[in-house]
């Protein structure tokens, strides 16, 4: 197998706190994870789980207590490798006395572009994130969503092989989120590797090839969204309308949920056709038949609750 674009091994981070900084809080424990080249990887977890910590460790903003990581085959201590990485920080903030064009130009200067290349790229990026008209306004006048877009622009301006986005959807309205999703898909099409963290599960389900779920500083599961929640479907759901005169389907109705005239009935896959025959014989109008899958959200909540139960058990023991 080819070398992973991002290779994390046993990454651990303790934060000292308290009087004289003697106590330690472990915000990340033994994270081992790989992101393959060309895939879109979603990093999921509740707030404070360690997503941002991991990303900051990767970007060398903070230093690990233990463990190591490599990006594009080089250790993260090699800063020159940052020329191939794009990073969007969480809730980005840039020099508010500069305009968007100036900020992008400033960041672009750290890469090897000629002056014409640089200005051309800046213009292209502004257009791409929809800030073309606002390019000459100072950032102090920008809304949160606009700042997010500037952040995204500076992350991909230099055409990096790996793009790391920390909560890229935060602060955006649905239109903005749609645009970001489109950009991520476009990056994927260009063969780039994308790692992004989020707690919006529907985005993850839609975009990611694989996700990693982190809760309480520990990695709980990694895999394609469908893998994680179990390939096994839990059956079929029939949506139907029933005229009041229907008979002979009493026990089926008892299992169904009713909203006005409509009923939803869950049955095993094996018993689907039998149920449908009975319903149509009773005069029901079948509106739709869909597969019932557990969602990522359920999987997620299950993990979060498990972690909380474990944490409180530890507390009980400690008392």
């Amino acid at each position, binding site marked *: 197998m080819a070398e992973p674009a991002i290779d994390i091994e046993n990454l651990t981070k303790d934060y000292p706190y308290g009087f004289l900084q003697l106590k330690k809080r472990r915000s990340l424990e033994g994270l081992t994870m790989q992101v393959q080249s060309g895939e879109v990887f979603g990093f999921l977890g509740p707030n404070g789980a360690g997503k941002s910590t991991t990303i900051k460790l990767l970007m060398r*903003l903070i*230093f690990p207590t233990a463990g190591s990581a490599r990006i594009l085959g080089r250790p993260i201590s090699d800063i020159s490798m940052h020329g191939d990485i794009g990073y969007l*920080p969480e809730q980005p903030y840039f020099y508010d006395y500069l305009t968007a064009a100036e900020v992008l130009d400033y*960041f672009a200067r750290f890469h090897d572009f000629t002056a014409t290349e640089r200005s051309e790229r800046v213009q292209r990026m502004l257009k791409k994130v929809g800030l073309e008209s606002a390019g000459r306004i100072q950032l102090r006048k920008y809304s949160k969503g606009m700042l997010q877009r500037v952040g995204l622009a500076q992350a991909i301006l230099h055409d990096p092989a790996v793009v790391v986005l920390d909560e890229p959807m935060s602060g955006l309205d649905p239109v903005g989120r749609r645009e970001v999703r489109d950009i991520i898909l476009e990056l994927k099409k260009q063969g780039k590797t994308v790692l992004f963290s989020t707690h919006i599960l529907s985005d993850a389900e839609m975009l990611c090839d694989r996700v990693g779920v982190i809760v309480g500083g520990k990695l709980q599961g990694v895999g394609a969204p469908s893998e994680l929640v179990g390939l096994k479907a839990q059956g079929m759901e029939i949506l139907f309308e029933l005229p009041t005169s229907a008979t002979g389907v009493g026990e089926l109705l008892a299992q169904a949920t009713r909203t006005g005239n409509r009923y939803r009935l869950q049955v095993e896959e094996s018993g689907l056709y039998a149920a449908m025959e009975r319903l149509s014989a009773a005069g029901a109008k079948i509106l739709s038949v869909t597969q019932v899958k557990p969602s990522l959200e359920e999987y997620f909540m299950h993990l979060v609750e498990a972690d909380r139960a474990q944490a409180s058990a530890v507390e009980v023991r400690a008392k």
Partner: protein
Amino acid sequence: MTRIGTVALNTFREAVRDRVLYNLVFFALVMMASAILVGQISIDIEQIVIVSLGLSAISIMGLLISVFIGVGLVSKEIDKRTLYALLAKPLRRWEFILGKFAGLALTLTVNTAAMAAGLFLALFYVKHSIERADTAVLVAVYFILLKLALVVALAMLFSCFTTPLLAILFTAGLYIAGLFVHEMRALQGGLIDPAFRRLLQWISYLLPNFENFDVMGAAAHGRAIPGALIAQNTVYAALYCAIVLAVAAAIFSQRNLK
């Protein structure tokens, strides 16, 4: 190298767009104007008064900028988190420190030059001529600039590991201590334990001695300043700045950003 230059020029741009800078320069110009007025009241010593007041104003204004903005160079970027995206670029942490320093040094140079020009204008207005002896004033201004560079380096060092407020206090404190090095060394009398006196003397040699840069007396009276002193002060400032910045870069390179 160009990375350091990029950071430096951006720092300079920030200072220029920061309206606070303009106010300070304006205030200094007001000082010059009052110097002219004062010069007219005390006859025969206009030169002395204008040069002394002018140099003092340049020094004080410069110090305010050096301390307050110097401390903010690093702390502002950390607090406002503008640093995050920046450090994700192929920019090493020590390059960032040097770039910030160079940017503020450039700002101070421009600022000081402007005020010095004002000072010479005031001098010309009063004396109606500029003599060769007035080059001493130019040297005095250069020395002030060297002093300010050292203060900036110290401000950056402290801001790398303490809060902005403490950094300001420490830097100011070190500056004031550096003014009394002479007194520290000239302590006479058997009132002090000789071992302690020797220790004080040692410390007095290692502390940044800002008195080295004080030639206001010579400048005011138009006495020439020896070239040896100019060379030595330049090397002193460069060397001391190098030490301070190296330590600052080392500390900053290991700092976990919140």
